[in-house]
Structures are given as structure tokens and as C-alpha cells.
């Protein structure tokens, strides 16, 4: 379906702090090793489905309404790295926590890359339409409880092995659900960012004058 061959080192490093540091030789070796190890464990899969707007079950709250302003369709997307990446991180935590945090960062990078590839495929499936960025349950006031609706609509449990627990945590944990708006007119360049983020009051990156990339 999709294959991921490289993972961004700079992105992975960003999750590991060290904003003012250059990775030394030992750190570089760890990074390279972990990238190769996590790549072998990726079983990336995604599903998507377009729904016509307005759609009451999908649009809950102000932030998603604003996000989909002017769109005639919305695409529901879900993507996962599969269970093996979670397992690798879990096992590594027992014997080598330092390594586990690096693997965890790379897995986070990987799921974003998978979503980027999924987006490219979606763009091809809807030629001539303009796409918004990915907006996920949990952003702003968009309820995280909608995870269950997303997975149900896409039959994600059966098709890609993605489920959610009673706290609406996605399992496997390196997974994403998101909405992408489709519009016939060019979309004003809105970006994800601090404005829609729940953490803006406490964010460590913001405090340091940086940005998490969200």
C-alpha cells in the first residue's frame, strides 16, 4: 500500500529536546540504528472515505466547522503503523530506555510521513479540488470521542486493525484519525498551529520561542 524508506532525522531529534545541541558521534550512531530498526517494524496502512457536507455526525463544535468552511466534501482519514512498532518500543523500554525514546520519536515521525503519503493519494483521487490540512479529534474543541465514529465509518478494526479503548486512545498507539476538507475554491492558507492547540498555555516549545511543528 505505502512504503516508508527514510525517516526525517531532524524531526526525530526535535522530539528529543536538545534544541541547542549538536548530536555527538554516539548519539548519531543511536539515531541511525534506531531509524533502521523501526523501519523494519512498520506495517503502514490507511483508509479514507469522502462524505458530503453538511454532515451532522462529523461536524461537532466550532473549530471543525471553521476548518471546513467553504468545503463541499470532507475526507475521513485513518492511518496506523501497525502493532509491531508499539511492541518494539514496549520491549526496548525494558532493556534500554534511552533507545526506546529514540524509537518512539521515529515512530511519531513515521506516522506523520504515512499521513503525508495518504494525503497525496487523496489529492490524486479528487483532482481539481483543494484540500485543507488534517484536523484530528482532540484539536481545539473537536471531541476526541469521535474516534469511535471514525473507526466505525471506515471499518478500521477489520480492515487495518485499528481500534480505540474506552479512553479514546487509538491502538496501535502510533495511529492518526483526521478530517480533510475538500473545496472547489482555493483555500486560504490556514495552518495547524498554536492557535488551535490545547497546549498553547503550557507549551515548552513556545516558552523557548520554538515551534513543535504542529
Amino acid at each position, binding site marked *: *500500500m505505502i512504503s516508508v524508506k527514510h525517516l526525517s532525522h531532524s524531526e526525530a*531529534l526535535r522530539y*528529543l*529536546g*536538545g*534544541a*541547542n*545541541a549538536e*548530536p555527538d558521534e*554516539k*548519539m548519531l550512531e*543511536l539515531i541511525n540504528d534506531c531509524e533502521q530498526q523501526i523501519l523494519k517494524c512498520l*506495517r503502514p496502512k490507511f*483508509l*479514507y*472515505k469522502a462524505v458530503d457536507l453538511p454532515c451532522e455526525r462529523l461536524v461537532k463544535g466550532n473549530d471543525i466547522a471553521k476548518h471546513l468552511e467553504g468545503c463541499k466534501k470532507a475526507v475521513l482519514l485513518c492511518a496506523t503503523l*501497525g*502493532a*509491531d512498532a*508499539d*511492541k518494539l*518500543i*514496549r*520491549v526496548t*523500554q*525494558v*532493556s534500554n*530506555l*534511552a*533507545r*526506546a*525514546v*529514540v524509537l*518512539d520519536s521515529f515512530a511519531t515521525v513515521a506516522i506523520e510521513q504515512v499521513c503525508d503519503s495518504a494525503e497525496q493519494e487523496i489529492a490524486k*483521487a479528487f483532482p481539481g479540488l483543494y484540500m485543507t490540512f488534517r484536523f484530528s479529534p*482532540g484539536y481545539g474543541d473537536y471531541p*476526541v*470521542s469521535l474516534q469511535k465514529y471514525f473507526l466505525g465509518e471506515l471499518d478500521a*478494526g*477489520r*480492515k*487495518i*486493525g485499528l*481500534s*480505540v*479503548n*474506552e*479512553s*479514546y*486512545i487509538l*491502538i*496501535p*498507539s502510533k495511529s492518526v484519525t483526521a478530517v480533510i476538507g475538500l473545496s472547489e475554491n482555493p483555500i486560504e492558507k490556514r495552518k495547524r498551529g498554536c492557535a488551535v492547540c*490545547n*497546549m498553547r*498555555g*503550557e507549551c*515548552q516549545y513556545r516558552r*523557548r520561542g520554538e515551534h513543535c511543528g504542529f
Partner: protein
Amino acid sequence: MDFKTLLKTKDFILLDGAMGTMIQKSGAVYEHSPETLNITEPGLIQSFHRAYINAGADIIYSNTFGANSYKLENSGYSVSQITGAAISNAKAAAKGTGALVAHDIGPVGMLLEPAGSLSFDEAYNYFKEQILAGDGADLIVFETMTDLYELKAAVLAAKENSDKPVIATMTFEKNGRTFTGVSPASAAVTLTGLGVEAVGVNCSLGPDELEPIVAEMTRFTDLPLIVKANAGLPDPNSNEYSIMPEQFAASLEGLLKYGVKIMGGCCGTTPDYISEIGKMLGGKAFIPCPKTSDSTVCSPSAAVEINGPRIIGERINPTGKKQFQQALADNNIDYILTQALQQVGGGAEILDVNVGHPEIDEKKMMTAAVKAIQSVCDAPLQIDSTKPDVLEQGLRYYNGKPIVNSVNGEEKSLSAVLPLVKKYGASVVGLTLDENGIPKTAEGRFKIAKRIVSRAEALGIDRRDVYIDCLTLTVSAEQDACRQTLEALHRVKTELGCKTCLGVSNISFGLPNRELVNSTFLTMALEEGLDLPIMNPNVESMTGAVRAFRVLRGIDKNSADFISAYNNTAPERKTSQSSDVDIFTAVCSGLKSEGAAAAEKLLKTTDPMLIVNEMLIPALDKVGEDFEKGKIFLPQLIQSANTAQECFEVIKKHLSNSGGENVSKGKIILATVKGDIHDIGKNIVKVLLDNYGYTVVDLGKDVDPQLVVDTAVKQNIKMIGLSALMTTTLKSMEDTISLVRSAKELQNPDGSSKCVIFVGGAVLTKDYAMKIGADYYCRDAKESVDTAKKVLG
């Protein structure tokens, strides 16, 4: 005709095709889930069943795939309403036709532990509710399962709450594994052991892609196989399937040679597909395909066939090990996990698990240990206890097919242990002793072995699943003992056809150079037919003897395993040579062995507490500060902490040897709250707190609030750290805090709280932390340490 008779008398049994596809094609509208149509459109559902019966189906599946109380939530209907209606619909359609009705049950819809947070017992209860509601059906079918643990809960729920026959199919991906990593071999071995009538595959792939999976399954079971394939591969988004009915039937024909007896269709199939299968089968006879595998034990992802010597690691056993006993008393599961991974690294293929210790609840600990080890380790386990109720606990919560250690020739043991082995589908170690003790002669032991085997076979346990232990006695006490053991072993192997196991290290007790005696004895026993040496795999000469034996006996084909074990021994970087690195530098640079060496050296001249307070702690402080300023990365902080840990261990050892004071600065509970399964942050906090000299009681993730309170009360702990990653689990954090605050035992006489609670986690803010009643909010691991210093000193 009932299902079991059908199975015996017919060459092939036809199942139905997809219900979902029929519903979709009919354009039927439903509010919540397709199962509600059983009540709103009974006529329509009956017409689908009838269409499949007319196409030739011997068995139809009720429209109850997702009829569990989790999925039906908010549907307005109960499990018994939907299930009752569904089975009535199927029976109405089957009336007068001779077709049987299978009560169809799919996955709960939430993932089980360890990947998810649904517990085994919770899953069991979902299935039990469904099974009790399905009284009218002729058999029970579990399908589209991807998690063997969930399927085990389902089969046990069926067996314990109904006497209907059970069949089960799992869903595999193109890579030959299910989404959760289950192998076809493990599925076949485990389900056969649990006593289902037939096993197989359904959904996800077309019949052609299923061939390698079916071929692997049949190698590991004598049961008839089920194939309910999709109509080819679906386009993931348009949902269109690629194979037409004739082609579908033709592909299935190619699978008959694997002992496939029961066939139908899954997604994308319709009555046309079923009638084509019927045509294809016309006049054909069932092709039996007996299993070719030897006795096999398994975890969900790894099947270990006992077709040559396999090492059982013996280290998870507290007998005579002070540190292990302490770890059990402290509920320190990490200690056990480390032992497990080390042994697998050393060459063990199966791990013995014994957690017997007078100060703990062995049943509880066995469950916890089995679950925890299986969450990080693929090796099958051997459940080891002298108590049948502990064995049962381990058997129930084990995922796969384990070994029971052990039964013996005593009547009490035979009648208590063997039924458990049968019920849970395990293998068992049989000790050649009885109420009269260990017979001195080989003949005496052989007789007991024979008795154990015949009792096992009377219950339907395959003799190849009985692993006879002829018992090693100390040769320094009785020199002839070795010969008796080996002779008994030889006879058991050749005359009874059983597998054999043996704990080897007893042989050398009381002698010098025990390792030499042990490895020689091991080699002698292997030559007599020993299959399962129970030993320490981290002793190189012992593991090496087994590896070499496998080569010399031609078991290790082309010496591949041997070469891969010894050929790539890249010379380990000798780091300990540069022992001139001082302890401060070692910690700051994360150099473990240099740190330990430096600590050893310092201890000769320096007061231990001085090393801790004036070297280790300042080094950790510097690293923490560097991390805060972004001068180093998180893994570097952790490596430094691990180095400090190593130094602390050296110092602790020194202190306990010299009877000095304990270095612990106080106990702290850490827990990731109920419902939350992200624990990497908590683990980082743990490492740092450990290193500042605090004793961390780590309760793990998804922790029940009551456990936090109970632990705090029992161990008199004054400081508690809680983590939560999701906004949705902050509620659990709040619940935990209020339970701690309301516990009388954790209050001072004036009603104030004895416990200081600090909290952290990605979505948490300081304001929120205060609002839910925490004492401190800690942004990162470093702040947790600062807080601990403030509170505990």
C-alpha cells in the same frame, strides 16, 4: 443431524457467504448497526439466510457478528434482544431444510492487553453475555479474530457456559500474520488444545492468497480446516472485490489437499459463490491431512516444535536467590522481565516461570508475571508451581500453549493437575516420583512414567505432550544415580515415545568445577534422548553444548543456527579498559561500565555517602540542567541516569556487605492512571528518581485507583506520582487523587492528607493539576526530582 454427526458423516460441509454484502446490495437502511435489522427487518434477514440455504449451505451464520454490549451501546437494543431475534430468524429460514444455525460471534472491538487495555476477564464477560443469549443455535462460531488472546477468552467463555460445539477462524494478512502478530501455527496449536471442533481462516484475503496460511495450519493440527475467504482482494476504498464465483470455487479446489473440509465465503461473496463451491465439490471425497509436526508449544507469535533439544531457561525462580525474593516482595516485575530477556538472549527457547515465595500471593503474582513476560517476550512459557490453583491461574491467563511444571505419579497430583492440562490444552512435565519418593532404579522411574502417560491418555492428552523428567540426583552423594537417570531417560524415550526433560545442574552439587560436570552430564543426557534441558542458558558452556549437539546430530541443518550464534561475534568494544575516567565524567557522558569501575575504585578510599552526595548527585544535577537548557538530548539524559544507576548498585552492594546504612531516601509510588497506556514518560521519571536515591514502587500503566491506595497504605508511602497522556484520562487522574484523599488510612488525625501527590503528562497544565487536587505539577522528569527533593529531602 447435529454438527458433530455432520462432521463425521459428510465429506464436505458448506457454509454460507457474506451477510454484510447481502445487506449492502439490498440497500437496506439501518440506524446503528446491521445487527439491528434482525429486529427491524426480520423478513429481509430471513430471505438472505434462505438464499444461502437454497444455494446449498449446510450451516448458516446468524446475523450477530457485532452483537456484543460494547458495539451495541446506544443502539437501543440489548445483546439478548438482538441475539434472540437473529437466531430466531436463522432458525425460521432453516426450518424443514436440515440446515444448522451457527451463532456467529466476532471480536469485541477493543484491543486486549498488552497492546490495548481491555482485560482478559472483561473480554471473557463480553463473550459470555453473547453466548448465554444464543441458546437456540446448533453451534458457536468465532470468526475474524486477529488476537489469539481474545479468541482464547471467547473459546473458554463458550466452553464454560454452553455445551455447544465450537469452531473458530482467524484473519491473516498477506505477510502471514494477523494484525496482532499471531502466526498460523500458533493459532492451530492453541485452538486445537482448547478443544474446538475445527479451525481455519476467514476474511481479508482471497483463497489463492490464503494457501500458505492454510498449509502452515494443517501441519500443526489434526482438526478439519475451515476456509471462508473473501471474493479476492478488496479495493480498500471502493470495496469492490476482484474474483468471480467460478474462479473462487476453482481456487478453493486447490486448497482441498490441506484437509479443508468446511468452506464458505466472506466479504464480497453471495449465494452464487456458495452454489459454485457446491458444484466444484460434487462427487469429491475429503482428503485427510494428518499433522506432520511434532509436539509443539507456543506463544501467539512463536511456535516451538520439540523436534530436537530445546533449552528451557530456569532462571525465573526465586529459590535460593535473595535478590529475586526481594523483587517479588516489592512487586518488581521489571526484575523478572530483565531475567526473561537475558535468558532469551542467551539461547533459551522456552522459559520456566516460578514465583513461589511465602510472603506473596502466588496466584496473583503468577498472573502478573505471565502477562508481563508475554508482553515483551515471544518465547513460550512453562508454568511452574507446586499448587494446582496457581497452575490454573497461569494456564488461564497464558496466551498460546504452555507447559505445566509439573505432575507426578502420586494420585493426588494426577487427579488435580491432568484435568487442568487437558482443559487449557497444555503440555505437561511428568516427574518420575510418587508418594514413596524417587525410585532408586531406572525401572522404578520408568514404571511411574508409564502410569503418568496412561493417565494422561485416558483424558485425551497426547503422549507426545507429556514430557517425562527422570530426575537428576546428586552424583557426589550416590555415584550410581547418574546411570539410573540416564537409563530411565533412554527407556522413556524409546519405549514410551514421550519427550523428555531434565533439570541438569543438581548433578554436580558438592563437587568442585561444577560447570564441567554439568556440561558433560548434559551432553550424555542429550545422547540418551533428552529433548528439554532445564538450565541456565546464560552459562556459555551449557548452551554451547546443546548447540554443538544439534550440529553433530544433524538437527541444525547446515549448522545454520550454530554459525549465526558464533560467527558474528564482533569483538565487543572493551570499554572498561579506560578506567581512568572519573565518576563525574562517566555519569555526564553516560559511560556505564566506566562509571561502575570508577565507583569500585573510589570505594576503597572514600566514604560511600560522600560519593553519592558529592559526586553522583552533582553529576546528575549537571546533566539535568544541561537537558533543561537544550544542551543535550533526552536519550543522553537517560544514559547518564543509567550510568548513575550502575554506580548506585556498586555502592549498595558495598554497603550491604559492610552492614552499613541503606541509601534509600524514601519510597515513591509511580503509576500511569487507569485507561491510559502511554507510560514512556513515567518510565523516564522512574529512572531519574531511582538515581537520586529514591525507591520507586512502579505500579505500571492502566492502574486501578484502588491499587494506588492499597499500595500506599500497605507500604506506608508518603509520595505518589501520577501520569496521564490524554485529556480523556485526566478524569482517571482526578479519581485516583480523590480516592487517595478520601482513604482514612492515608489521613492524619486532623483530616489532612499524609500523601503528597505530584502529577505530569503531555496535556496537563499547572492550573488543571491544582484543580484536580494535586500538590505539585511537574513538567518533566527533572522537575519530578526537584519536587521529590523538596518533599522527601
